[in-house]
Structures are given as structure tokens and as C-alpha cells.
């Protein structure tokens, strides 16, 4: 999948939704921003608070303030949530001894069963437990921008509400900027988007307010499907709200 015209500007504290049909490039967009191996940026720019991310490794992007949730979080056998967060915190000069208490507090906020902390990352967890786990990670790491890839897939209603609530809280308290990538407008009933983008064939065809999601409910993606225009990829994350 190739992205051709993605002009995104996600300011701090804003919630943006990228909506599109299957195969429109939604996951590619999430992976390209996070720097997943195999997703090459041949032209265009991705910046976070003025830092060019394109040549950075995924962990350097994380240190710049980026966070992403995966649609199907990878199982990492033998590696626990806490040790991973301790290493992540220590890598930026943080206090690893504070992580345990932070994890407990965040787990409490999103209803993540502390017994599950002893399991390996994403191993033997339900869809809801995995996303609650990712919300705990977000809470401890306090990123500036979170890319949420199909946050609502495989999630029960309670878990989706708890996780969405924690993310919205972070947008208010920590000025977290959010780019939520989703197939369905269902997500937007619990995670309220300020801006909605329509992504088709790797190109953002339309950008609007929350009413755009409502329009999509009625018309589907048909109104944009014949558009063949392309444009450069420019993604600006963080910084002052532009709305």
C-alpha cells in the first residue's frame, strides 16, 4: 500500500480521526508514522514538534513523544509489561523505581486486572485486556502524540469506554494529541474527534469536523471513490493546536 497524499496536522490536545475503507492505507499510515520496518518513506515528511521523524528508529520516535497502539498487539513471550516500561523509562533518564507504582495507578484507572501484570505482554489476554494494557502503557509513558490503530477492534463496550476515557483525559491533562485510525464511526461515539479525515487509496480526500463522520454513516465512501488526485505526504504532529 502506498500513501500518496496525506497532509495531516495534529496539534497538541486535539483528537483527529482517519477513516477509510479496508485497504485504503490506514494501517500503513500508522506504521509509517511509527517507523515499522518494511514501511519506507520515499518522499514527504513526518515531524513531531519540529523534529523530523523519518530517519529515526521506532524507539527514537517514541523518545520524541510518539506512541502507537496496534490493532492486534504483538505477543512478546517472557517479557512483562512492567520490565518493558522500566527499560523505556530508564532509556530517557527516568526513574525506573517509580514505574511499579505508576503502573498500579494506571491499571486502576482503566480497570486492568493487576494479576495480568505477571503475564507476558499480550499473551493470553482478551482483546479488551490488551487495549487496557496499552492504555496503561500510554498513561505511564505520557507521550505527546498517540496513533490509535483500530482501537475498537476486538473490544467489548466496557473496555472501549474505559480506554477511550483515559485517552480523552490525557488530551485534557497532558495535551495529548491523538490520531485515531478507524474503519467504523462506532469509535467516535466514545472517543470524540475534533477533526475527521477520509482516507481512500492512500490519499486524504476530505477533512472536516465531526459531522463528516455522520455523513460517512449515511453515504459510505462512494462520494470519494472516483477521485484519483495525488498530493505530497506531509504529517505534522504536536505543537500548537491549529484549530
Amino acid at each position, binding site marked *: 500500500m502506498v500513501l500518496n497524499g496525506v497532509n495531516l496536522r495534529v496539534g497538541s490536545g486535539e483528537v483527529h480521526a482517519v477513516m477509510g475503507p479496508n485497504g485504503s492505507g490506514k494501517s500503513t499510515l500508522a506504521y509509517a508514522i511509527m517507523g515499522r520496518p518494511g514501511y519506507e518513506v520515499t518522499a514527504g515528511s513526518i515531524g513531531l514538534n519540529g523534529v523530523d521523524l523519518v530517519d529515526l528508529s521506532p524507539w527514537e520516535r*517514541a523518545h520524541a513523544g510518539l506512541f502507537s497502539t496496534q490493532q492486534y498487539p504483538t505477543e512478546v513471550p*517472557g517479557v512483562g509489561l512492567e520490565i518493558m516500561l522500566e*527499560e523505556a523509562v530508564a532509556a530517557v533518564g527516568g526513574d525506573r523505581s517509580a514505574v511499579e507504582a505508576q503502573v498500579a495507578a494506571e491499571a486502576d484507572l482503566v480497570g486492568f486486572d493487576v494479576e495480568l501484570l505477571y503475564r507476558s505482554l499480550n499473551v493470553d489476554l482478551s482483546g479488551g485486556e490488551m487495549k487496557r494494557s496499552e492504555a496503561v502503557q500510554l498513561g505511564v509513558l505520557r507521550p505527546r502524540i498517540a496513533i490509535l490503530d483500530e482501537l475498537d477492534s476486538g473490544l467489548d463496550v466496557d473496555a472501549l469506554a474505559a480506554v477511550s476515557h483515559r485517552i480523552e483525559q490525557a488530551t485534557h491533562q497532558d495535551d495529548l494529541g491523538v490520531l485515531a485510525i478507524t474503519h467504523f464511526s462506532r469509535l467516535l461515539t466514545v472517543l470524540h474527534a475534533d477533526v475527521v479525515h477520509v482516507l481512500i487509496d492512500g490519499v486524504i480526500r476530505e477533512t472536516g469536523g465531526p459531522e463528516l463522520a455522520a455523513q460517512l454513516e449515511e453515504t459510505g465512501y462512494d462520494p470519494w471513490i472516483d477521485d484519483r488526485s495525488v498530493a505530497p505526504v506531509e504529517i505534522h504532529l504536536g505543537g500548537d493546536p491549529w484549530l
Partner: protein
Amino acid sequence: MIDSQFTPEAAGAIPGPDWLARRRVAAAEQVAASAMPSVEEELWRYTPIGQLDLGRYQLATDAGAQSPTPIPGHCAIADTSNGWLCGMELALETAAQGVEVRPLGESDAELAASVDVDLFAVMNAAFSVEPVLVRVPPGVSVEGPIVVRHWIDAEGAAVFPRLIVDAGADSSVEVLELYGSADVAAFVSPVVEIRVASAARVGYLAMQDLGPKVWHIGSQVSHIGSQAHMRASTAALGGGYARMRLDTHLSGRGATGDLISLYFGDGDQTLDFRTFQDHAAPDTTSSLLFKGAVDDSSRSVYTGLIRVRPEARGTNAYQTNRNIKLSEDAWAESVPNLEIENNEVHCSHASAVGPIDGEQLFYLESRGVPTETAERLIVTGFFDEVLDQFPVLEAVPAVRDRLHSKIEGFSHHHAIERNGSGA
């Protein structure tokens, strides 16, 4: 012909009970009439066996230092040094239960039956200077592990440790064997016999942490009786070429054998395992899990055979071998095999050789964990599944520490390779 100092005369000169002396001489005659194995033989494929020059090694005449590795909570400990027994302790309460930990004596002639699976096991029968017997009477549960520690510090020593574990019916015991050495060139060829009588429970763990100039060619043969359970594990960390052949015979109805091992190669080590799960009775179960990692230009070989004999209906047999290749120059071979002569069985095998999982690496990195740290966490986690199942819990911290220091070494030099300089 084995043209060396390992002659029948030399075997006959080793002190010991008469029956043992006779067996030694007979075995040495067999050795003298044998040819060295060659890589042409399937069981010696992928090995450097052609480079082994037995003429460079000789039986050590004296004990040297004793193993420096402490193991907490043991109820008995036997130390050998350069093959010779140099220390023996048995807790009073364990001795009072009738448990024996001792060298072989005149009364042990019934142990003469040979279990030698290859030329080196025959050499062991001929030249093991002080075999150790661990015997647990029927119905006795032993508290705390029985530890046998082998230490080698004589340059050019040929050492043939032999341990016989004889667990009586309905008994329960855990045995730990440690192999370590100073930085000497040596040839170490151990044999372990494990006899698990009906309804007995045996845990056995071998930690092999010999120096890089040591050849280690060993075998372990176990017989598991009806309704008995054995869990046998190896942590292979040291040695230049280090090989274990493991023959597990599920001999009695309802016998269970768990074979849980790990290995980590670096430098130019070759770590080699040949396993046989032999189901010879109905309703027997064996599960094998071997996990290894190879770094630098090290190599590993795993070949395994599950054999289900015609009489072994109701067999459950599993075999899993997974390998992580940590460097371009490292190499791992994994060859599982099944030979099934009964239709009422459940058997499976799985094997894999590959680099660190890229998806796992990306997940940790996307959280801000730098590459080297993420790799270290993943490799450490890969082995946790094995360590979590090891018997002899008292020894697991020592294995874990040693394994982690090897993983640290890998992580450190990968950091240097990525970042240019270690300064």
C-alpha cells in the same frame, strides 16, 4: 583403532571393586577394537569429531581444586575434581532415610549392565575412575537436591564422570549435576544413568559450564517405570564442542518423561544434542522442549527421534526445538523425526530456526526501548519458558545468572557493532 594411551592395561590399573575392574578392561578392549566415529555417520553429522585428537589427553592422576559454585539447600553433595572424588557430604536425616550417595563398591555388581550408547560411553565405562551412585530406597522422599559437582583444572585431562541415579519405587528425589572447569584444554566425557522405578518421581538438572577449550561428549540414558515421572533438563552454556546424547526409555505403562533444555552458544562454540524418546509401553507420555540461541560464529545441532514401538498404544509424544540466530555467522540445525509403529498415538513435532522476531522487536521499540535492550529482553524472555519448567529450583538462579551474563555479552557487542565504538 583408537591409537592412544587409553589401553586395557590402563583401565585395569584403575583402583576399584573387582567387578568394576573386569568391566573396565572389557570396555577398554572394545574401545581398542573400535574406530573413531566420523561425520559420515548420521549421528555425527555437523560435528567437528574429525578434529578430536584423543592423544592430547590423559587421565589425571590427582584431584585439584573443587567446584566454586555454591548450591543452597542441598541434602547431599559429592565433589569430583579431575575425575577423582574429593568431597562427600550427606545430611544425617537423609542418611537416616537410607539414601546413599557414594562411590561404587563390591556389592554393586548388578550395576555392571552396560548402557553404553556410543564409543565415548564405552570409553567412560573403561576409564571412569570413580563412578558415583545415588540410590533412594522405595517410598522415600528426599528433601532438597542431591548435588554432584565436577571440576576440572588439570591441563590436558581426560575425565569420565559417571553418575548412576537409582530411584526406588514410589520414591522422590532431585539431582543436580554441575560441570565446570578452569581455563584448561580437557576432554570430558560423562555418562548419566537414571533409573526411575514404578511410581517414582525424579528431577534431574545438568548445568554444563565448562571452559571454551574443553571437548564435552556425553550421554544420558534413562529408564522410566510404570506410572513413574522423570523431568530431565540440561543447561548447556560452556564447552568448545559440547554434545549430549539423551536416550529416554519409557519402559513401564503410564510412564512420563519431560525433557526440558536450553543452550546458548557464542564465540566459536558448537553445542550438539541428539535425543531419542523411546516409547516401549502403553499409555506413555514424553514431552521435549529444547530452546537455544547461537551468537557470533557458534553453531548448534539438534536432532531428535520419537520412536513409538508396536506395543506402545496410547502414546503421547511431543518434540519442540526452537532456535534464535543472533548473528549472521551463527548457524543452527534442527532435525526432528518420528518413527511410529502404532496407530493409537498422539505425536507432534515442531522446529524453528530464525532471527529475533521483528514484530516483537518493533513492539518494544515502539514503546521507547532501545534496540539492544529490546533484543536482550526478548532473548531473556525466550528462555523463561524453559527456566520456568526446570527441576531443582535451588539451582535455577545460578543457571539464570550465567545465561543472563551470556545474553548481556551478546547485547553489549551488538551495541558496539551498531554504534561504531565501545569507548
